[in-house]
């Protein structure tokens, strides 16, 4: 009778299991019309107000597919190709002293509810947010805008409180920007801060179709009047992606499994091993930024070893350089990215235009750069690192590793600093340190130990880089322990509650040489005393008159002026001499695409759009994708 029971149980399970295939993956939507993108576990699933706090960083497709503003910069593009006029018909026009910006708008753009988009929406957007502190873009508007008016329905004039040649960047999308609000909707609500804008009206080609109240998925559908949008009117054919599904596919393993099962077309980010697995198990149904190793897409973001300049001994440039000299970057590259890292010796991400604007031209300067260790001067730069990494990964990847040095530089970066323990020792002694056995002592005689802070799971590759660097320093007599901050990471970085950390303090347009995107915030006038919260970007609280001079100069030249690149180089050289933080590599993101249903994804060969699903430029990818003719028929 026991046997019977067991048998019955088995039957029951089987009965559950067998018909799974029968249930189509998305109810009522043909799989081959839907692009499935890895989304977040949206907790505020019912919330579609982009402009209220919390809504501003919603990665569920809201800002990627429905919001719009004046301009976009493609972080992967170079030169003019990188720049896109969205709602604006042309680039911003400043007056001579940069106290006024005039924007002309395209005509024939409509909200998804049929109301036409006009200059009034822009004016309303700016004024409403100034009136409501706490709204996403309230503060920058309050700080900059003296008044805004719309002389006619296609023109907006911003009068600024002070000269600002970069004011337009508020409306220029890299990851996101100040999105335009639908006046006719918000007018009718009493408090824009508590209004959940559900369902949202869309200013772009897609509109909300349905969503999961549990926050596991949101489905967007192509607008019938998709032509009446800034992105639609540039297209010559109807986008083939009819539905965009942002789904939370669970933990990294689950993501990989789901893509291998063709239930997830676009992965935002996974560990290298996951990427390699997909490349191994599903090579012919997968597209990646690089066709082979290192696969990864480099974001215009610069993971670095950040020093807290307000804590001794890290205010001492010799100590910082010494620590740099103790890093074996090859081990870091292998350990963090299994070699698939795009190394950076300069303090700007080696991506987009930065390569041609800065890295290539500055190679000679780097090679001849001399560092005084106190007893002698050395040339620390090693331009052959990419070849060395290639040699390390060749056994695993074989023919995927080209021989051509230039190609290798594109994959692994241009070069980095040599590992030089003796130079490091000299630098430390120069800084007054003494060595006792295999333990460095600070000038005051106490042992030199470091707590190296990493965020952890959220960015596994950086956590790994941290553990390796910690080990390298420890082996050279500087006891270093890794410290996982988790979600408090941002707060502790901002509050200066760390010795040394692995994070990025430099982000750029990628598609434009201008460095103001981060550099503006490096001005000494923003630096806070220890304990107080430092405004974003200059997390190391690096302070230097020469730096201030560069920033002030940059403010006075216009966005597209040739001087911009020159000032950029000045900053980069200064950063090399001072080593305020140790740049490691571009933030390489493994974002494999499943080509079973869709083809024509962006790649290093054809970088027409950023590949990160959370980046707002993604919309330009979505409308370009082509249905795979060999896709399995819809069930």
């Amino acid at each position, binding site marked *: 009778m026991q046997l019977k029971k067991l048998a019955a149980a088995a039957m029951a399970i089987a009965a559950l299991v067998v018909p799974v295939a029968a249930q189509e993956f998305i109810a009522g939507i043909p799989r081959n019309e839907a692009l499935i993108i890895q989304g977040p576990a949206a907790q505020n699933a019912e919330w579609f107000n982009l402009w209220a706090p919390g809504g501003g960083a919603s990665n569920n497709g809201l800002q990627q597919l429905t919001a719009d503003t004046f301009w976009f910069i493609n972080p992967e593009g170079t030169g003019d190709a990188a720049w896109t006029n969205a709602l604006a018909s042309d680039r911003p026009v400043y007056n001579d002293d940069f106290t006024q910006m005039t924007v002309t708008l395209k005509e024939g753009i409509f909200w998804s509810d049929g109301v036409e988009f006009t200059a009034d929406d822009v004016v309303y957007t700016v004024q409403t947010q100034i009136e409501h502190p706490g709204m996403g873009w309230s503060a920058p508007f309050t700080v900059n805008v003296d008044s805004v008016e719309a002389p006619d329905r296609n023109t907006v004039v911003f009068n600024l409180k002070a000269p600002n040649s970069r004011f337009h960047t508020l409306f220029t999308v890299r990851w996101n920007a100040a999105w335009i609000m639908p006046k006719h909707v918000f007018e009718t609500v009493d408090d824009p801060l508590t209004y959940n804008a559900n369902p949202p009206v869309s200013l772009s080609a897609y509109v909300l179709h349905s969503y999961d109240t549990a926050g596991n998925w949101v489905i967007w559908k192509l607008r019938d009047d998709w032509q009446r949008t800034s992105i639609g009117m540039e297209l010559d054919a109807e986008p083939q992606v009819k539905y965009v599904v942002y789904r939370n596919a669970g933990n990294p393993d689950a993501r990989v499994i789901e893509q291998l099962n063709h239930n997830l077309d676009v992965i935002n980010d996974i560990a290298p091993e996951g990427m390699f697995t997909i490349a191994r198990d599903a090579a012919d149904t997968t597209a990646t930024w690089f066709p082979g190793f290192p696969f990864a897409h480099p974001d215009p973001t610069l993971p670095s070893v950040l020093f807290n300049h307000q804590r001794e001994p890290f205010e001492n440039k010799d100590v910082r350089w010494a620590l740099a000299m103790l890093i074996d970057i090859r081990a870091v590259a292998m*350990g963090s990215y299994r070699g698939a890292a795009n190394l950076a010796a300069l303090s700007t991400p080696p991506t987009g235009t930065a390569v041609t604007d800065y890295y290539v031209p500055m190679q000679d300067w780097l090679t001849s750069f001399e560092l005084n260790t106190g007893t002698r001067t050395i040339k620390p730069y090693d331009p052959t690192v990419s070849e060395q990494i290639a040699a390390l990964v060749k056994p695993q990847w074989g023919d995927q590793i080209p021989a051509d040095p230039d190609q290798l530089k594109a994959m692994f970066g241009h070069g980095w600093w040599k590992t030089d323990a003796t130079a490091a020792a000299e630098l430390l002694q120069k800084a007054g340190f003494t060595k006792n056995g295999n333990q460095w002592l600070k000038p005051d005689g106490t042992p030199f130990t470091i707590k190296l802070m990493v965020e952890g799971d959220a960015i596994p590759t950086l956590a790994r880089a941290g553990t390796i660097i910690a*080990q390298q320093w420890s082996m050279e007599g500087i006891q270093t322990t890794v410290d996982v901050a*988790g979600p408090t990471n941002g707060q502790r970085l901002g509050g200066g509650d760390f010795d040394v950390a692995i994070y990025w303090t430099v982000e750029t347009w990628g598609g434009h040489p201008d460095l103001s995107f981060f550099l503006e915030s490096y001005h000494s006038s923003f630096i806070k005393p220890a304990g107080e919260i430092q405004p974003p970007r200059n997390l190391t609280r690096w302070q230097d008159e020469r730096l201030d001079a560069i920033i002030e100069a940059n403010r006075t030249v216009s966005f597209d002026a040739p001087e911009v690149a020159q000032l950029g180089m000045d900053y980069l050289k200064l950063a090399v001499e001072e080593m305020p933080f140790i740049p490691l590599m571009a933030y390489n993101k493994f974002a494999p695409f499943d080509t079973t249903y869709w083809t024509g994804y962006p790649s290093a060969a054809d970088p027409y759009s950023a590949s990160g699903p959370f980046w707002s430029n993604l919309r330009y990818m979505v409308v370009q994708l082509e249905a795979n003719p060999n896709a399995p028929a819809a069930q």
Partner: protein
Amino acid sequence: MFKVLIDLLRYNREFAIGFVLTAGIFLFALAHFWAPLPDTAIYLLPPDMPPSTEYWFGTTSRGQDVLWQMSSAIWNTMLFGLTVTIISRILAVAVGMVSGYLGGRWDQAMMTINDTMIALPNIPILLLVYFVMRDSMSWPILALTAALLGWNYDARLIRSVTLSLRNREFTRHAVFAGMSVPQILVRQHLPYVMPVIFFTAMNNLIWAIGLEVTLSVLGFSDINRPTIGGMIYWANQHQAIIAGIWWWIAFPIGAIVLLFLGLFLLAISVNEYIDPRSRLSRMGA
């Protein structure tokens, strides 16, 4: 006691198996003191090596020898588990025996609080504590927290035993003989409670280790310190399973399951040994 141990070993299969498993794993954990490399060192060996004669259990994607990692991991995990067990035993015995001996109002009051704590969901509270402590959450603190949450159930058991002893002849004699309460509890009652303590200790150990694994797997513990949960955590970080580095996960899990099985067998066989009824059937009468 020792004689009993020998008897159990000779005549009780469960106990024998359990003992061998536990002891074996303990010895294996002990071996980490002779590990060739420091257990926190990474990338010193070729990564992702499958099990071979050179690396019996293979190597991790972090270039560590799984065998030696496990050795330290089990050691640290057991250390954690034992700490929890010992602290929580002390609490359980104290509360249980006092409450059982005093009886009446005191007993009621203490047991009410006890049951209250039983009803509190452990994991959320532990997570809450972690959430507060963050990276200052060292394993001893975690152990203490776990211990504070892990004694109530057993306190109840011990109390019921003491309650029954309370009305026994020898207790009254002791009272007339003018023994103080602590004396009575320690000299007269503890011997009877001892087996229960031992039995609950096993289960508590299992519970504590399970807790460690769970929290570390979620990354809610010191990741620099190799533990079983920590190994699985790092394996997940490197997506070891789908990447096919199965040995990184399989061996630790296997080890922990064996350890659990061992402890569990010990627990039930000891329980059978101390169960008054099975004892009765042994003595006849």
